[in-house]
């Protein structure tokens, strides 16, 4: 079983990202479970969501305490919440930022870290700084847990028309960025 925890702020599509990731895995014939951290979160408040992916039915329903990978959609959370709690040693970390891991002060983590300017890519291709879909495409490049094609299919399933095209373009750009950074899944 592969476990992913997604951190962000209310309004950034944190819950949607977990759902899209689960859909991408489902489209590859796998079992996936996406769950939000339940509560009455408000726009801008720290939000967490979870996604489990496995080859067999997932019965476990506890929150993910020891994720194999982290997706952090808002870098300002790095110094506010303990986003790295429980990350498995050598796990994967994807950060939405135009700065490097060194500049963000997280280079010392026992993890493979990739930073991707997902909000900027979304602003360019979608017209709005919504980083979720672009982050998922970079996640596909970083981990290989799902393919770019599945992520794009999930994006087009959720977002219709211009929103679908814009998010897909941002996702492709983020995937290409990740590959340029020398990431090998």
């Amino acid at each position: 079983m592969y476990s992913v925890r997604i951190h962000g702020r209310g309004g950034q599509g944190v819950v949607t990202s977990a759902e899209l990731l689960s859909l991408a895995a489902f489209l590859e014939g796998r079992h996936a479970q996406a769950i939000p951290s339940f509560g009455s979160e408000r726009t801008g408040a720290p939000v967490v969501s979870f996604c489990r992916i496995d080859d067999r039915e997932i019965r476990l329903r506890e929150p993910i305490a020891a994720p194999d990978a982290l997706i952090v959609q808002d870098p300002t959370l790095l110094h506010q919440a303990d986003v790295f709690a429980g990350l498995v040693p050598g796990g994967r970390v994807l950060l939405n930022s135009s700065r490097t891991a060194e500049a963000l002060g997280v280079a010392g983590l026992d993890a493979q870290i990739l930073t991707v300017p997902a909000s900027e890519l979304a602003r360019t291709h979608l017209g709005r700084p919504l980083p979720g879909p672009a982050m998922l495409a970079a996640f596909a490049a970083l981990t290989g847990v799902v393919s770019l094609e599945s992520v794009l299919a999930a994006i087009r399933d959720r977002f219709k028309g211009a929103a679908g095209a814009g998010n897909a373009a941002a996702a492709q750009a983020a995937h290409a960025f990740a590959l340029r950074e020398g990431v090998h899944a």
Partner: protein
Amino acid sequence: MPRQLEGSVAVAETVAACRPDVICAYPISPQTHIVEGLSRIVKTGGLGSCEFLNVESEFGAMSACIGASATGARTYTATASQGLLFMAEALYNASGLGLPIVMTVANRAIGAPINIWNDHSDAMSQRDSGWIQLYAETNQEAADLHVQAFRLAEELSLPVMVCMDGFILTHAYERLEVPTAEQVAAYLPPFEPRQVLDPDEPMMIGAMVGPEAFTEVKYLMHAKQQMALAAIPQLADEFERDFGRRSGGLLRRYRCQDAHTVVLALGSVLGTIEDVIDDMRDEGVAIGAVGLKCFRPYPLDAVRTALAQAERVVVLEKAFAVGAGGIVGQNVRLALSGLRPRVHDVIAGLGGRPITKASLRRLFEQAVDDRLGRGMTFLDLDHDVVARELQRLEAR
């Protein structure tokens, strides 16, 4: 065809496939996505002449459901938590009048203190309201139980609550198959009400009954609900034959063969319990689980048969009777009266506290080693906090 979708959406689409005539609801988390989904289906013409009634409260919702059902309409609603409590008076009328209303309860805690998260306090508070209560383990089962619930309700002329864990199931995205309208049409015949309020042929229902007959009416209510004990397994068998998967029934045994320790629970926590049981079975521990799918009517004989051979039974429940103890636990003791197994009440997951594999593992090991007390155990209780508060109270 399997799809990846949210539990609430699956339930909304399944209820729509059951072709209700009237849907009446008042929004409350975590049930809201279900009725939002249904309102969209009705608005876009997906349910023909079905009426979606917006009302001012849950009391109004159940009252309108009672009126609609009494005129012979297939009627559905959904609620949770304080919303269910606000319906309480009308719930007893729906069951007393024998109206086959189906209602989803997206289980959630009851305040005070205010809390929007999952436990079973809401449904358990209405366990004696005369409604049949079914509990779903997964979103697949939640969807399937609604199809069975309409059939059961209409065959017996009794209202049915389908309980699914709020947020944990309602807000989870997972793989499942939504029963199609064609499949449901073959399983669920059109509603033929036993009695219909009709202005052209006036009749009265719900007349006053005095002391000379009230006991008999209540006796018959009990006897009628007990009939569900035979109907529920039959409907689950028939469902399995038609849909190709097992959902519902009175209870389900998991790796109970030769089990010295059996854990009994309701709802979605069974998945996590089964994962822990697999780990412990791999290590040679004789442990199994029983998932109770139907709590009202209480399947006393089935529970007795399922647990009779165990040495100890851990009843893990997400609600309790303040001042008394476990609710399901007391019902299990009733079933095991005169038999060997010791029964331990464990209260867990109150107000949304996650029930983790690690905590369950520790709990089950304590049970297997006979280190679990006879009284009520609260899983993951912060003993320091309660000791300090008790000290403060006693110092007054």
